[in-house]
């Protein structure tokens, strides 16, 4: 009897530890890959839209594309930055989703790891897509993704505030006329402009229309044109044209500030069109002016549809169908209507959208003049340069360094890091 009890205990303990070991091991290497191939029919899609919960129009649209392709889709939503990390980790483990919607400046970094299938090899046609909008998905001549649509930045204005200050938005055509308008708004007792200069990618994203609009190049962060652009922003903060809080404002916070009705202008994106229409004041939008006139190139925003490499190559056919369903002209217009984040990336799609919503013309024009952040052959170097750029903006706006010194330090750090 006693020996039996001990034996039982022993057996139980070793079974438990074996079980622990087993679960521990599979915990170390996530089993999503084996699970999904075992369940054969379930296809996985990752996107960066956690705000669209299950049952939202967007979730329904994805599952409808699954139904069309004859499979059930399991969708998981991540925060934008978290999704980039998740995609890298999954690529390492070989457990990536069948389709990922990834923020466009991260596409070339992921493509460079070899974790993505190029669109030509699975027979997805990208020729109809506007080259400037497709550019972030192109690396070394191959296309690794299809834009779900595109968005960009423009200047929203509060018509009531502008009327009170006697400013006509149509008069803003270059930096000089813009400065005059801002000063008038400020002198009329309102806050002139708000934007986001936060120390993240959003800060660089918002600064780029001014940086490029001044004629500067991301390969040369401390050029006189670049310094001039940073001086423009720095002086706005120094003279009280822009509030000091822009240094820590995300684009969302900026928008909330604008919605208070106290501000004349706000730099923000296509995705706020619906919110602007619902604002308690009359609002409108104009393109961001370039320094010496015309429209400044704004950076393209938006997600790309990607196909990560899978062990089971037979899955590609279905993934391709899902991507096609979401990226046809009609599909792009539907996406644009589902959430006003996007302008279609093909001129036919844009034509279709304008027929339904002629008021979006400013945005269609802005998107067509927009520039990919990873363009100019920057590719995987863009994220490194961008980090230095937003750091320089932060240092200059907060007064830690002069615009010229901040950009000089940024250029030095960027060239050290990119030459590695």
């Amino acid at each position, binding site marked *: 009897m*006693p*020996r039996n009890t001990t034996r039982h205990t022993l057996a139980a303990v070793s079974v438990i530890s074996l079980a622990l070991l087993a679960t521990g091991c599979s915990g170390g290497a996530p089993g999503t890959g084996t699970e999904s191939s075992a369940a054969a029919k379930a296809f996985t899609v990752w996107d960066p839209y956690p705000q669209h919960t299950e049952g939202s129009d967007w979730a329904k649209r994805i599952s409808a594309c699954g139904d069309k392709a004859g499979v059930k889709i399991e969708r998981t939503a991540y925060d934008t930055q978290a999704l980039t*990390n998740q995609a890298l980790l999954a690529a390492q483990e070989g457990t990536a989703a069948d389709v990922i919607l990834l923020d466009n400046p991260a596409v070339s970094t992921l493509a460079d790891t070899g974790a993505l299938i190029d669109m030509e090899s699975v027979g997805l046609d990208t020729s109809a897509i506007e080259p400037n909008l497709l550019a972030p998905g192109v690396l070394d001549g191959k296309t690794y993704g299809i834009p779900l649509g595109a968005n960009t930045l423009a200047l929203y204005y509060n018509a009531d505030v502008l009327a009170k200050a006697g400013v006509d938005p149509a008069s803003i055509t270059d930096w000089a006329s813009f400065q005059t308008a801002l000063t008038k708004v400020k002198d009329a007792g309102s806050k002139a402009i708000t934007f986001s200069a936060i120390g993240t990618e959003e800060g660089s994203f918002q600064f780029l229309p001014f940086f490029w609009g001044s004629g500067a190049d991301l390969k040369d962060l401390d050029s006189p044109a670049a310094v001039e652009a940073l001086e423009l922003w720095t002086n706005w903060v120094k003279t009280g044209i822009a509030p000091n*809080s822009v240094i820590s404002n995300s684009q969302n916070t900026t928008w909330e500030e604008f919605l208070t009705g106290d501000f004349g202008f706000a730099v923000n994106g296509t995705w706020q069109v619906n919110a602007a229409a619902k604002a308690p004041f009359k609002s409108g939008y104009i393109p961001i002016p370039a320094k010496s006139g015309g429209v400044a190139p704004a950076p393209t925003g938006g997600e790309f549809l990607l196909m990560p490499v899978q062990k089971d190559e037979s899955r590609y056919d279905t993934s391709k169908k899902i991507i096609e369903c979401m990226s046809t002209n009609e599909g792009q217009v539907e996406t644009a209507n589902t959430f006003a984040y996007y302008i279609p990336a093909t001129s036919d799609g844009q034509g279709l959208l304008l027929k339904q919503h002629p008021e979006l013309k400013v945005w269609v024009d802005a998107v067509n003049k927009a520039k990919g952040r990873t363009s100019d052959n920057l590719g995987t170097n863009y994220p490194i340069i961008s980090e230095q750029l937003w750091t320089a903006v932060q240092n200059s706006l907060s007064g830690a360094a002069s615009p010229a010194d901040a950009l000089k330090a940024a250029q030095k750090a960027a060239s050290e890091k990119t030459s590695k």
Partner: protein
Amino acid sequence: MTTTPAPVRTRAGDRAAPAAPPLRPRRRPNDTSQWIAWAFVTPLMIYLVLFYAFPLYRNIELSLHDYTPRAFVRGNAEFVGFQNYADIFGSSSFAKAATNTALFTIGSIAFQYAAGLALAVFFRANFKLSAVLRGLFLIPWLLPMIVSASAWAWMFNSDNGIINAALRVVGLDPVNWLTSPDVALTSVIIANIWLGIPFNLVILYSGLQNIPADYYEAASLDGANAWQQFWRLTFPLLKPVSAITLLLGLIYTLKVVDLIWIMTAGGPGDTSTTFATWSYREAFGAGNPDFSPAAAVGNLLIVVALAFGLIYLQMQRKLEKQ
């Protein structure tokens, strides 16, 4: 339940056969108990290896290779020895991050400890509502970090924050709490002190409960006033508890990322960057994940924490000898 009758029967068996050689039956339980001991230790060992030893090994491995995103996915990172550490020490951010880490840690725990101790002594005198008040002081501990850090960020907002609004009412100039390079670090330290007071209060208060009331009685009979009682009795008797409070506080504070990240993201520029946020920024904060330098900074933090742990052990040994 099943094991209780077992020893009785063994003893009965021993009594029934006194002539049997005593070695065998005695050794067997010893053997099995050895086995049982191992069986009980094994799950713990497996747990420790999987969740402590392996991540630590992986972190060291990451820091000795050059893991670009490409190498990370393909698993063919180049071995670079201590190059990442050399880069970290040579980086323009190093001096700033080191100073900030020291200021953040020392500033936080000094004020947390002082405030926690003062409150603990205050609450030692039981008065009406003291339990309720003590409970209220725990609130910072109960709130999720994202809530308290965001609340502080809003209060510190340059244009719409309540703190600047209060300053304006009193007629003072508003301060750019989170966006001025000179003030940002102080602001995150203030928020962190507020967060750390409950922890210090709870531990020091329980330490105070262990000091016998007779001592204070004797002291007051000898004519010691409250101030003398604190410095001659409370403070020296609380030394062991204070030491562990400070050590734990130090380790918690060294590794703070979330609070700083939510409030300033280490900015403006790198004026509120500590080692912990620097490591986070390298790995996850920018578009280009740099796991190797991030791991190197992380290991540096582990070494610092370990050094203070050893100092603590040394101190404890000295106290025990006394």
